[in-house]
């Protein structure tokens, strides 16, 4: 610490705010100005250490901050004004909360003396966001601002990461104070437990070694704790195959023999069968969301379940577990590996061999690729995009719906933070702004957003942001003229009553051009690669409107509430 700790010169709250961000190492933020935070924008005007990205809707600022956080592992920051600016952030905050990514959302608030008086652009954002963020603060005194901001970044990025909201009244931002950034944090009510209980760890290890049909279920917690190496070692040493959740794509190389890929509602046939038949399930960093468990009663019904999670609330919430371990994925697995190496645990490779063979049998069962008409198939588009782009190490973002599931099924990753998708909340309109955040976070690396024609229209205005900062985000719009996933449910479960799911859209090529971006239309298979090649090479924001077959369905498919091994593989 060579910097002088106390700056005798007094600063106003808005300047203190920026100094705090600097102390936290923040150099890029996403935001939208407004009345009560004008003092911050005044301070930003002459600020050379923070680059502000002006979005076109506050929801997008928060999604972009989350996309930035997901791509970089750093805390994403969004800055918005009071009232509608603040309420527009709610979806973004909830999204980051469900998927557990660290962001800090700064909202302006009306002056302290006006709070509660229904002032212009007043909203009780603290009350509104209480149930969808990890923590929130209303700053009442400029002297508290540095402490609150330090705590906010700490809470957002530690334990199970998540969003923190800091609400800053106008007068606090204008009040003067000397700036001193606290060096320590005192939060007696917040002590995430990083190290698993040694006894539980031994028990878990023993169980896994003795198992005949063991399986590892890898969740998003492994991304947060960067435990990919430990996971791989554990899988290899104990001879245990690995299946992953949507949030954990890439934590275990999907081309590895031990990988079963994604499980769940639209997961692999073999992964769902393996989890239904395993005798020991080692689950790490997952909440056991209903989209991966199917019918709870039948989920891993023969298995003893070991569950590692840093959030005690995740344990025994949905699935009853036999060995709970509260701790950080990396620490727990490291402890297991150390214990395994230092004691003579025996692995009966021959016992597990028949399990491997069984999984091999299941792996032969794949959904039949039915090409229903002459029109372009969405599956073909996504396959081709993946095959062409995979060697350029792209970040793939998605919106929510059929295209999201196809992307998750067809695109394989061998490292995390490369597949950015809204899992828990299932937010249409997430992918495009998240892709913007990812592009900003990776200094304009290759970012491709796989979108639907429904989803893209939920935050289509962000194309202006892309153009303004020349962010080369490529949007592949899987355009089938329907809200495809809902349509799929209606086809199967509601007698083909396509109620309100046929959705029209604009001419996406013209929209792109109107915004000053590039637009392409693809209607034939052979056009995909040349267009994509041009899109990647031009280094500009791009819309590629892929007009595809309407009726394609996502398979495998486990109907909501069905057990995981009741997999539908085709229209039959």
């Amino acid at each position, binding site marked *: 610490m060579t910097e002088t700790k106390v700056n005798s010169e007094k600063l106003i709250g808005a300047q203190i705010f920026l100094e705090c961000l600097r102390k936290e190492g923040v150099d890029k933020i996403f935001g939208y100005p407004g009345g009560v935070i004008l003092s911050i924008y005044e301070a930003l005007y002459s600020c050379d250490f923070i680059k502000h990205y002006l979005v076109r809707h506050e929801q997008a600022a928060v999604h972009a901050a989350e996309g930035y956080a997901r791509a970089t592992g750093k805390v994403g920051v969004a800055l918005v004004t009071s009232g509608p600016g603040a309420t527009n952030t709610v979806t973004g905050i909830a999204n980051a909360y469900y998927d557990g990514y660290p962001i800090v959302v700064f909202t302006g608030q009306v002056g302290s003396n006006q709070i509660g008086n229904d002032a212009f652009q007043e909203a009780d954002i*603290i*009350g509104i966001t*209480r*149930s969808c963020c*990890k*923590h929130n603060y*209303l700053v*009442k005194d400029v002297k508290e601002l540095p402490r609150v901001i330090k705590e906010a970044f700490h*809470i957002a990025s530690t334990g199970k990461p998540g969003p923190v909201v800091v609400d800053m009244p106008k007068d606090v931002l204008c009040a003067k104070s000397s700036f001193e950034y606290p060096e320590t944090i005192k*939060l*007696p*009510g*917040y002590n995430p437990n990083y190290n698993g209980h040694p006894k539980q760890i031994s028990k878990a290890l023993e169980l896994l070694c003795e198992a005949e049909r063991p399986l590892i279920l890898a969740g998003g917690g492994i991304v947060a704790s960067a435990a990919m190496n430990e996971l791989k070692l554990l899988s290899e040493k104990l001879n245990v195959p690995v299946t992953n959740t949507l949030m954990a794509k890439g934590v275990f190389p999907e081309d590895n023999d031990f990988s079963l890929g994604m499980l769940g509602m639209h997961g692999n046939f073999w992964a769902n069968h393996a989890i239904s038949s395993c005798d020991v399930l080692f689950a790490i960093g997952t909440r056991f969301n209903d989209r991966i468990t199917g019918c709870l009663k039948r989920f891993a019904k023969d298995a003893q379940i070991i569950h590692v999670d840093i*959030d*005690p*609330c995740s*344990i*025994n*919430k949905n699935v009853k577990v036999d060995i709970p371990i509260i701790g950080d994925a990396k620490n727990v697995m490291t402890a297991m590996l150390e214990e395994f190496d230092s004691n003579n645990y025996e692995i009966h490779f021959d016992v597990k061999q028949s399990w491997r063979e069984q999984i091999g049998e299941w792996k032969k069962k794949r959904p039949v690729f039915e090409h229903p008409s002459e029109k372009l198939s969405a599956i073909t588009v996504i396959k081709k995009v993946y095959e062409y782009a995979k060697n350029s190490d792209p970040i793939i973002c998605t919106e929510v719906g059929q295209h999201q599931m196809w992307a998750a099924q067809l695109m394989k990753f061998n490292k995390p933070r490369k597949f950015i998708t809204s899992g828990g909340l299932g937010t249409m309109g997430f992918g495009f702004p998240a892709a913007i955040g990812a592009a900003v976070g990776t200094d304009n690396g290759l970012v491709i957003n796989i979108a639907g024609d429904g989803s893209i229209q939920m935050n289509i205005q962000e194309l202006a942001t892309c153009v303004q900062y020349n962010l080369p985000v490529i949007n592949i719009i899987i355009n089938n003229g329907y809200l495809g996933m809902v349509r799929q449910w209606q086809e199967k479960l509601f007698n083909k009553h396509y109620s309100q799911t046929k959705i029209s859209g604009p001419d996406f090529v013209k929209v792109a051009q109107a915004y000053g971006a590039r637009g392409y239309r693809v209607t034939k298979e052979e056009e995909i690669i040349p267009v994509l090649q041009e899109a990647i090479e031009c280094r500009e924001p791009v819309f590629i409107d892929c007009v595809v077959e309407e009726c394609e369905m996502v398979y495998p498919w486990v109907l909501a509430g069905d057990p995981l091994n009741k997999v539908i593989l085709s229209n039959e």
Partner: protein
Amino acid sequence: MRKNHVISVLVKDEAGIVSRLSGLFSGRGYNIESITAAQTSEKGYARITIETSGGDADVIEQITKQLNRLIPVLKVVDLRDVESIERELILCKVIAKDEDRSEILRIAEIFGAKIIDVTPRTYTLQAVGDERQIRSLIELLRPIGIRELVRSGKVGITRANQFSSTKTVE
């Protein structure tokens, strides 16, 4: 009948803290039978006592975990899990007809209740007791005619020394 759980929560005394806790209950579908909140002996800390009903062991486990997850929550104790004493205070305005007055006084005496206000038509009783005592008292007063009943909600304290001060958590 499943007994209610009384959960004692030590929190940092800050604006909105009751709302943070009660919002958690409503948002996750847990029942609140009663809730009381007040400062503790140490400045800056408050104790919130929540009585919850209808939850099996799994629900109670989730409730305690979810409460613990809140940042300003320092300590959560399910008083059912430990040796503890629970009390509730009630104020009860009873219709006092001439022929009932001596009966009211007798009931008050048995339950150690005080008459804290008298009007030509009513007696107001103040009583403190555990759940069973309070229930019996109300059952006895009901046929006489309760005009108004105000209950404090339960408060509780552990008998052992395990949950005495904020110092243990810092």
